C-alpha cells in the first residue's frame, strides 16, 4: 500500500503536468513543468536513489526548466497567452489519453509485477560511479561528445547572421 508521501507526490506530479499543458500562460505552464520535474525528483528520493534525484534537480529543475522559461520570454506577449488547439481534436486527445491509461494500467495490474516486492538494501551510489568508469565508459565518452556537439549545434542554429556587430552594440 502506498504511503502519504507517495500520494502527495502523485497529486503534485500529475496535477502540475496537466497544468503545464493546459494553463493559458506559457510562463505559468513552464513553472508547472518545474513542479512535475521536482515531483519526479521526489519519487527518486522515495526509491532510495538520492544521487539520481539530485541530478534531476540540478539538470532538469535547475537548468532545463530555466532555459525553457527564458525561451518563453523571447516569444511575443500575445503568443504567450494564446491557446492554439482544435476543440474536436482535444476530445479525441482526451479519449486517446484515457484509452492509454486504462489499457496500459490494466495490463500492468494484471501482470506479474504486482507481486514484486523487495526487502533488499538499495543500490549504493558508489556502484553507479564504478559502473560509469568500468562497464559504461565508452557510453560515457560518447555522451560527453553528444552533449558538446548538441550545445555547439544549438549555438550555431540560434546564431543570427543578418545582424552586424555594430548593430548588436546599439
Amino acid at each position, binding site marked *: 500500500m502506498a504511503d502519504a508521501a507517495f500520494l502527495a507526490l502523485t497529486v503534485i506530479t*500529475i496535477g502540475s503536468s496537466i497544468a503545464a*499543458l493546459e494553463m493559458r500562460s506559457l510562463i505559468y505552464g513552464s513553472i508547472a513543468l518545474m513542479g512535475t520535474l521536482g515531483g519526479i525528483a521526489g519519487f527518486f528520493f522515495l526509491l532510495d536513489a538520492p544521487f*539520481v534525484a539530485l541530478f534531476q534537480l540540478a539538470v*532538469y529543475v535547475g537548468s532545463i526548466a530555466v532555459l525553457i522559461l527564458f*525561451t518563453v520570454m523571447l516569444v511575443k506577449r500575445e503568443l504567450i497567452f494564446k491557446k492554439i488547439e482544435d476543440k474536436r481534436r482535444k476530445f479525441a486527445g482526451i479519449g486517446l489519453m484515457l484509452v492509454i491509461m486504462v489499457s496500459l494500467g490494466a495490463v500492468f495490474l494484471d501482470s506479474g509485477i504486482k507481486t514484486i516486492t523487495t526487502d533488499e538494501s538499495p543500490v549504493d551510489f558508489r*556502484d*553507479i560511479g564504478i559502473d560509469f568508469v568500468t562497464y559504461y565508459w565508452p557510453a560515457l565518452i560518447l555522451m560527453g561528445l553528444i552533449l558538446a556537439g548538441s550545445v555547439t549545434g544549438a549555438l550555431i542554429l540560434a546564431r543570427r547572421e543578418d545582424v552586424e556587430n555594430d548593430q548588436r552594440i546599439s
Partner: protein
Amino acid sequence: MTNELVDFTLVSVALLAIGIYGLAVKRNFIRMLFAVEIIINAANLNLVAFGRFLPHSGGQTLALFSIAIAAAEVAVGLSLIIVAYRMYQNVDIADFRSLRG
C-alpha cells in the same frame, strides 16, 4: 518498502498518457516540448523504479544517461524553436511549412 513497484508504474503510465495527449492535441511548439519532457520523465521513473525493486544499479545508471541526453535534446529543441520563431514570427506548428512535402 511500503510502496510497491506497480504504484510507480501506474504513475508513469499516467504521465505517459498525459504526454501523448499533449503531443496529439497541442499545436504550440513549446507545449509539445513540455509533453516530450513529461514522457521522458515517465520513462526515467520506470527505469529507477525497476532498478530499485530488482535491485540492480543499471536502472539508475541508465536514468542518469537519459537525463543527460534529454538536456542535449532540449538545447537543440529550443534553438530550433528560436530559429522557427524568427522565420515565421509564430509558435504554431501548422504555420511551419518549409519542410512540408
